[in-house]
């Protein structure tokens, strides 16, 4: 069976116009959730209260040890039972964001650990309050260093967004699958979906590499 270029051109606009847009939107929003929530989790892991540290540790390990697709199903089917109703796309953004927050938390932790001890001591010597120590001294040094690692997680996250088609979010793969089932012909749309992923994730990885070099230079 041969590749049909005419058909490929016919399905391309649908996959790029709708699917790619959804994929990028979910990726960006879920990344923002993961960056913000990851920082919160990383700070909670350094909480002075031991119980908080244990609970956060257990939560992170649990989320990281179980499949994202099962967590997506959990949120999609269980939350409505207790009266929380979201559309599929926001549900997906929140679950993916939460899942990746458990990875970015470790990234932030490594970044915070890499800040020299003298910085903490100086902050103490200046009797800065706890909040100021974190937000004016430690984090401004820790975060720039971990930006490339955060970027890499965004790329992984991008590649997991097609999971959401199981709850009805039509991303690149969802759109391709829909085009394919409309014409009973899958090779072109699914291959286009694969190529699109390659293009997006490869260009994103080039961006991250540039960021890496910039971070390395500024240190």
């Amino acid at each position: 069976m041969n590749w049909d270029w005419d058909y490929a051109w016919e399905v391309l606009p649908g996959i790029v116009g709708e699917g790619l847009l959804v994929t990028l939107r979910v990726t960006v929003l879920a990344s923002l959730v993961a960056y913000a929530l990851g920082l919160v989790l990383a700070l909670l892991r350094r909480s002075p209260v031991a119980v908080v540290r244990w609970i956060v540790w257990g939560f992170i390990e649990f989320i990281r040890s179980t499949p994202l697709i099962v967590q997506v199903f959990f949120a999609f089917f269980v939350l409505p039972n207790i009266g929380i109703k979201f559309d599929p796309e926001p549900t997906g953004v929140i679950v993916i964001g939460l899942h990746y927050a458990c990875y970015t938390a470790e990234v932030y932790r490594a970044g915070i650990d890499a800040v020299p001890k003298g910085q903490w001591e100086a902050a103490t010597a200046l009797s800065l309050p706890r909040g100021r120590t974190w937000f004016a001294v430690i984090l401004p040094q820790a975060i720039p260093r971990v930006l490339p690692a955060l970027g890499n997680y965004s790329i992984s996250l991008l590649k997991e967004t097609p999971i959401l088609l199981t709850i009805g979010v039509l991303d690149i793969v969802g759109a391709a699958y829909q085009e394919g089932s409309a014409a009973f012909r899958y090779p072109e749309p699914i291959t286009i979906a694969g190529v699109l992923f390659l293009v997006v994730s490869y260009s994103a990885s080039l961006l991250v590499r540039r960021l890496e070099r910039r971070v390395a230079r500024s240190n």
Partner: protein
Amino acid sequence: MFDNLPEFISTILDGLGLTLAATLGGIAISAVLSFVFGLAMLSGSRIVRVVARIYVEIWRGTSEVVQLFWIFFVLPVLVGYQIVPLMAGIVVLGLNFGAYGAEIVRGAIQAVPRAQYEGAIALSLTPAQRMRRVILPQALVEMVPPFNNLFIQLLKGSALLTMITVPEMTNQARNVLMDLYTGQAGLIWTVLLVFYLLLSVLITFGMKFLERRAARIVGRGPSQAARDRGLAIAVEAGAGRGGGFPT
């Protein structure tokens, strides 16, 4: 509320065999590919390096879901031959995670200190002996922890096989249990999550065992972390006895 728990557990257990088959099959294939392509990326031949690089970039650059769909929907049309969904899943898991594993192998081999190469050359070992007897045993110890993470990712990736109709654990929960007990979604999905958690813990145990063995082969004792802990205890004990220089 927990009346149906035994049924939930037994229905999910019906899928355990397939989850295990997919995970272990995927681990076997990806481990082999990791070493083949990890070593190929360090080859002296430019063509071999380029081929390995292309494999790694393509399988890491596309999504696992796309790869599953491609093998499941596209390949049969192109070659006129439908492979069993489970086999398609195992092949995709192996190829996908093999690409990540190849980078682990390459990194670990490159992390072996240069002096080890030089020593092996000075002893006039052949390149094959150098790799097999000197470099690889040391690199193996470094590889085990990242492979532990990778294999847990692979286990999680096996849940995606539900999208190509493999009746593994996630599929059992989604297509058997959810149709019958929609109101008890919370319990069903919690049971499934616990199953995956246990399997992850099992993988970690297995890899800790491998790590100890790999470390013993090169005479490094149990593990670096354990050694550091032991060292800290020894230092503390010494300090407690008033050892060291008199002050």
